[in-house]
C-alpha cells in the first residue's frame, strides 16, 4: 500500500529525514518509535503532504502511485489520514460541519454527489458512539477548548468518519489518561481491517499494548535504524533508546 524509498526531506534547509525505507502492506500495523527529534512527526507530515517540507531525494508511493507532487487534500482523497499530535483549534467551525464538508469534498473529488443528510446523521451517530463522544460535543467549535483527551478522541472520530486506507497516528497517546487511551485504541482496533493499514508513531510503548503492531521500527537521526517484531517495543521501554544509539554509532 505504502512504499517509501530512500526518502530525504528538509525544512528550511535543515535536513531531517536522511534516507527512510519503509513498506506498509494492507492489513498491517506498523509502529514507529524513536527519541525526540528523530524525525517521527516529520515523517508523518511528509506523508500527509505538508508543503513546508521539501522532499530532496527519494519517493513516496501510495498504491503504486508516486504522491510526492500531490496536495494534502488530494492525498486525503486517495485515503491517507493523519491524526495530529496537536490538533488545530478552528473557532467558528463546528465538528459536525467540518466533517460534513470533509466528507462531501472527498465525495466530490471522486465524482459522487453529496451524502444525503439523513445518511450523514446516521454515520455521525454511529461513529460518535464508537468513540464515546457526547452529541453536544459535535456542535462545538472544532478542538476549541477541548481537553487533550477530547482532541485525540475527536481525531479518531474523524478517522472513523473518513475511513482511510492508511491512517498515521502521530503521538495519539500523548496527553491521554488511561480511559481515553482505551477508548481511542478500541476505536482504532474496530476500524482495522485486512484492507487498511495503520502507522502508529509513538514515543512510548504504552499505546502498543492496545494497538498491537506487526512491526516496530526505530527512527534515529532521520533513518530507520532497527526494525523488529512487537517485542522490540518492550525492549525499548525497558532499556530506553541509548543502546540503539550506541549500536548505530558502533
Amino acid at each position: 500500500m505504502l512504499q517509501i524509498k530512500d526518502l530525504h526531506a528538509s525544512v528550511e534547509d535543515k535536513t531531517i529525514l536522511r534516507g527512510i525505507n519503509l513498506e506498509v502492506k494492507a492489513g498491517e500495523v506498523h509502529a514507529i518509535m524513536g527519541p525526540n527529534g528523530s524525525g517521527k512527526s516529520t515523517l508523518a507530515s511528509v506523508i500527509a503532504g505538508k508543503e513546508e517540507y521539501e522532499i530532496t531525494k527519494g519517493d513516496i508511493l501510495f498504491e503504486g502511485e508516486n504522491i510526492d507532487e500531490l496536495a494534502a487534500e488530494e492525498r486525503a482523497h486517495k485515503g491517507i489520514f493523519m491524526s495530529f499530535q496537536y490538533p488545530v483549534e478552528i473557532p467558528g467551525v463546528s465538528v459536525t460541519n467540518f466533517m460534513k464538508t470533509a466528507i462531501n469534498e472527498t465525495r466530490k473529488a471522486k465524482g459522487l454527489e453529496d451524502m444525503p443528510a439523513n445518511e450523514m446523521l446516521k454515520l455521525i451517530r454511529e461513529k460518535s458512539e464508537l468513540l464515546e463522544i457526547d452529541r453536544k460535543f459535535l456542535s462545538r467549535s472544532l478542538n476549541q477548548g477541548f481537553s487533550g483527551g477530547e482532541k485525540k478522541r475527536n481525531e479518531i472520530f474523524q478517522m472513523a468518519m473518513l475511513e482511510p486506507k492508511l491512517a498515521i497516528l502521530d503521538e495519539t497517546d500523548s496527553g491521554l489518561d488511561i480511559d481515553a487511551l482505551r477508548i481511542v485504541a478500541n476505536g482504532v482496533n474496530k476500524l482495522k481491517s485486512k484492507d487498511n493499514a495503520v502507522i502508529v508513531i509513538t514515543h512510548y510503548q504504552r499505546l502498543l499494548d492496545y494497538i498491537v503492531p506487526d512491526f516496530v521500527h526505530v527512527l534515529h537521526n532521520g533513518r530507520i535504524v532497527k526494525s523488529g517484531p512487537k517485542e522490540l517495543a518492550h525492549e525499548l521501554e525497558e532499556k530506553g533508546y541509548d543502546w540503539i544509539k550506541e549500536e548505530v554509532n558502533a
Partner: protein
Amino acid sequence: MDLKEKLVSSFMAFENQVDVDSYVHGIRTEAIKTFETTGFPTKKEEAWKYTSLNKILKQDYSVFPKQENSIEYRDVKKYLIHDIDTYKIIFIDGKYSSHLSETTHDGIDVCLMSAALSKPKYRLVIENYFNKAATNDSLSSLNTAFSSEGAFIHIPKNKLVEKPIQIVHFSTGNESALMLQPRNLIVVDENSHVQIIERHQSLTENSVLTNSVTEVFANKRAIIDYYKIQNDNQKASLIDNTFIKQKQESHASVHTFTFGGNLTRNNLNFYQHGERIDSTLKGVTIIGDKQHVDHNTLVHHIEPNCESHQDYKGIFDDNATGVFNGKVVVEKEAQKTNAFQANNNILVSDKSSINTKPQLEIFADDVKCSHGCTIGQLDEDALFYMKTRGIPEKEAKALLMYAFANNVLESVKIPEIKARITKLIATKLGVNIGFNL
C-alpha cells in the same frame, strides 16, 4: 466643467421641479451654499485620509436621469428578499417604481419622500425631523440640497411592524454615468419596532455614484434593526451617510454587509439622546480586486447608562483596500457608559491593505470602554489540518473566513437575510459549500 460646478449650476434647474416656497426648500438653499463653499472632501481632511474620491468624481455623471426607465420584476427578483412577505420601496434610476413596490398607509406610513414633502398631512413630521439628524458636512449637504426622493417611513407608537421593509435603488445603466442622491427619512415612535433592508444595485456595467443620506429617529423604547446589503457591481460607488438619533431606552442596530462595489464609504453616525440606549454597529466586509471600502463610524454617548457595541470584520484579497475609522465620544454627563469596539481583519493577499483607527474621546470618569483591532492572515496550520481531511485549499480558506465573520451574522434576526448573506459570501469566495455552522 467639473462635477462640483456641474452640480451647483444644475441647482437652478432643480428648483424648477420643486416647490421653492416650501419649508424644506429653505434647508436645501442653505445646503447648496454649504456644498459650494466646502466642495467634495479631499485626502487632506483627516476623515478622508485613506479614501480618495478623485477618480470617481472625474466621470461625467448625469445628475438628473433624462428618461423614466422600467424593469421587470423577474429581472430583479434575485436582488430582493423574496421568500418572505415584505414592504418594498423601489426606485429605478432615482424614480419611484410603483409596479415593483409595495407601500402602505394602513396604520403606518411606508411610502415616498416626494409624497411626504408635498402633502400637508406630513408637514409636521417633516418639520420635526427632516435634516434634524444629518450633519452639514459637504456630502450630506450636497444630498440635502437635491433631496426630493427616497423612502419615507413613519411608524406611529405601539406598532410592531411584522413585515420587514426593503428599500432598493436600481440603476438601469441607460445613462453612461449616473449620479443618484436618495434621501430617506425613517421615524419610529414610542414602543414601535421595525426592520429595514437597504440595497443599491446597478444592472449594467455603466458607472453609478450614489450619495445617499438616511436619517433615522428611534423614539422612546423604539427598536430598529437595519440591514445594509452592499453587493453592487464594480463600476458602482456608494457614499452612504446614515444618521441615527436615539431617544431613551431605544435599541438600534445596523448591520452592513459589503462584498461589492468599486468604492464604498459608510459614514454611520449614532447619537444617543436619553438614558439606557443601546446602539449596535456590525459589519462584514469581504472584498478583492481593486475594491475599496471605508467604514467611518461615530457613536456619540451624551447621556448616562447607555451602551454601544461595534464589531466589524474585514477580509481583503488581491489589491483591495479597507479603512476602519471608529470614533466613540463619551460626554462628561454620560457616566456608566459601556462602549465596545472591535475591528478584526484578515489580509488574504500581500497586496491588500487595511488602515484601522479607533478613536476614543472620553470625558466621563466612570465608564467601561474597550476597543481592539487586529490584522492577521489565515492560519496556515488550520489550513493544512483541513486539507488533510480532504477539504481543498479554496474551500478550507472559505470555511475559515466564514467562521471568522460568523459572529456578526449570528446577530442577524431575520433568518432569510442570514441565509441570503451566507449565500452571497459563498459566491464571493467562489465556493459551493453550505457553511451552516
